[in-house]
């Protein structure tokens, strides 16, 4: 073992004033070069269309001075704060409190979710937002199987969402099948697509796998746009039947639920029904995933993420293990897609762009890969945060991006980075995120 380092050596750690000024001067120089044209020179079209310009060196000087001063302040703050470590930022007492809260946050969130339609019955906007959040929670849980457990980076997850949505839309509009028959079919078709994607990409790892899945997502979208005779092309599919409560429609008609229960019809009934439908679907996804983790297949997924070569040496068929991960994740995506179609009543390829894949992947990564609760928190933060910042108009994305950057600096492995063991003899202790691998595809 090496000799212990001196307990504290502030002199060696703290750079001298000269170094601070040097760094600040470099920052100021970079700012000067960057902003000299952006701020220093203002151009505009004159009255006759000719170019007129004038200089704004005063503003430029202010910005450069701000960068210089800010750089010094940041460096001083950093010295005052000392080296960043979790124990220093969060005192142990708070951490223990968080651990206690961590045990209760899941059940509390669940009870709250069940009560949302009761509490916010008259707040249509909040109900719609909760349905949206739950849809992304479900998608996140589905993708978590592929990315979080099996460690396969999938950038085209929206393809399975699209397959599920179109499966339901086309089966329902062309053959008049009910939602409850189409739902499993949509899941099976999406899982089939997952296997279809899985086969050619099994030998690829890491970045290469990500690119192929990205391409797969685009292929599905382009097929949806161009196969006009089946999918209606860019116009999408309209008039998708709304779900029924086991055959009882939620309409003001005489055979509707309201009439049967002899209560006044309200369009909110359907919203509440949709809310509980997606809540149930999401909880089924969660339950199945938690069960799968404790089964040999789930352990094989996680082992695959940890070390693929060792898996092969232990006689695990890595091909089928990867395929099942893809298929399971795709199936949940398909369920969510069918729900999306029935909720919207109209779908078009525009709903299934890469942006959706990126959003779901961001939820999984932000939540902490493999963590079920983390996905919920991240989905609330991402979708809810998106709505929260709506008042900021054009700065919304800016604030949102900044928040994400800060969050990833604070918790590089996601909100809940540690891993809970699937089986234990005596004590169920979480495994630090430093040890858990992210997988290489």
């Amino acid at each position, binding site marked *: 073992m090496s000799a212990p380092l001196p307990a504290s050596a502030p002199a060696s750690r703290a750079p001298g004033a000269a170094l601070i000024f040097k760094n600040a001067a470099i920052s100021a120089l970079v700012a000067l070069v960057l902003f000299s044209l952006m701020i220093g020179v203002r151009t505009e079209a004159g009255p006759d269309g000719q170019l007129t310009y004038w200089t704004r060196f005063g503003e430029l000087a202010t910005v450069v001075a701000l960068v210089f001063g800010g750089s010094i302040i940041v460096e001083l703050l950093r010295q005052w704060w000392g080296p960043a470590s979790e124990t220093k930022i969060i005192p142990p007492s708070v951490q223990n409190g968080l651990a206690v809260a961590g045990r209760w946050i899941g059940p509390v969130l669940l009870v709250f979710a069940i009560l949302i339609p009761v509490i916010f019955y008259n707040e249509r906007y909040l109900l719609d937002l909760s349905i949206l959040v739950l849809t992304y929670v479900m998608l996140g849980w589905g993708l978590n199987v592929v990315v979080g457990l099996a460690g396969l980076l999938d950038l085209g997850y929206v393809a399975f969402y699209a397959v599920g949505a179109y499966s339901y839309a086309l089966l329902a509009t062309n053959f008049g099948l009910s939602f409850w028959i189409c739902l499993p079919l949509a899941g099976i078709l999406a899982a089939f697509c997952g296997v279809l994607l899985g086969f050619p990409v099994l030998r690829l790892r890491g970045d290469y796998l990500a690119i192929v899945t990205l391409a797969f997502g685009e292929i599905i979208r382009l097929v949806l746009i161009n196969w006009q005779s089946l999918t209606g092309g860019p116009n999408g599919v309209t008039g998708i039947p709304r779900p029924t409560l086991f055959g009882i429609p939620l309409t003001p008609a005489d055979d509707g639920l309201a009439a049967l229960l002899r209560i006044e019809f309200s369009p909110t009934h359907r919203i509440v029904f949709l809310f509980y439908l997606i809540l149930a679907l999401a909880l089924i996804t969660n339950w199945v995933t938690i069960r799968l983790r404790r089964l*040999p297949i789930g352990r094989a997924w996680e082992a695959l993420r*940890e070390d693929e070569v*060792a898996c092969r*040496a232990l*006689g695990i068929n890595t091909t089928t293990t990867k395929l099942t991960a893809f298929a399971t994740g795709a199936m949940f995506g398909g369920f969510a897609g069918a729900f999306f179609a029935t909720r919207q009543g109209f779908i078009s390829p525009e709903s299934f762009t890469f942006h959706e894949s990126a959003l779901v992947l961001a939820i999984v990564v932000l939540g902490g890969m493999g963590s079920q609760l983390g996905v919920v928190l991240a989905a609330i933060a991402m979708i809810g945060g998106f709505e929260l910042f709506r008042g900021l108009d054009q700065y919304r994305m800016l604030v949102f991006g900044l928040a994400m950057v800060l969050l990833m600096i604070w918790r590089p492995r996601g909100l809940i980075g540690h891993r809970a063991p699937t089986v234990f*003899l*005596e004590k169920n202790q979480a495994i630090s995120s430093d*040890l858990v691998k992210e997988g290489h595809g």
Partner: protein
Amino acid sequence: MSEAPILSVDKLSMRFGGIVAVNELSFSAARRSITALIGPNGAGKTTVFNCITGFYKPTSGAMQLTHDDGKTIRLERLNDFRISKQAKVARTFQNIRLFPGMTALENLMVAQHNALMLASGLTFLGLIGAPSWRAAEARAIDLAQVWLKRIGLLERADDAAGNLPYGDQRRLEIARAMCTEPALLCLDEPAAGLNARESAALSELLLSIRSEQGTSILLIEHDMSVVMEISDHVVVMDHGVKIAEGTPQHVRDDPKVIAAYLGADEQEAIAVMESGT
């Protein structure tokens, strides 16, 4: 029970482009015994291992495995995970390859994957929590516990494998390989990086695996004290060919072996000679 050697390698060759890593190597490993494969660095030992365990497809040659019931398996015709699943050959790695983010117990549970997959009805029985699955899982945990106890890690069963000390990780990897219930256990430098006390414990563990489980062991090792103490048979390789073979005493006195070690690495040759005195 079959009396044929558990593994017989016949004229095995492995080429990487123009480089001949292994050239017409023939040897056999006797049943219920410990066979050591030694040689200077770069002699091709690990390449032989990778051929036997299906990580490389040999350029030519045959490798025949004979199970206790007399069933023979041609290893060069199997690949990848089937070597472990069907031929029952388990291996460890020169650089430890545990699942660091999983607990010691979980590592041993992953090793029982194929048996547990069947017991869980390819997941469907397990998903509904069938009693047969629960019983199988309990048995698997028991087996894992037995092995954790044997390697002295029972009280660290719930610790992440990546958090264990180096020597414990080495032993855990051997236990993990044994949880696949292999007929032949291939160990790639199991004593590398261990201190004298840990090496002695390792020798004891390997001898007990041979006598209690009846598992045949094939090992690559640089630590001559381990090789001389536990091996029943030693095969010496240099530059991809076999240069000597026999009992530890026999190869230790073989001038060709000493020359090979002297030519490649003086210190190891001295270690060979000194371990006999």
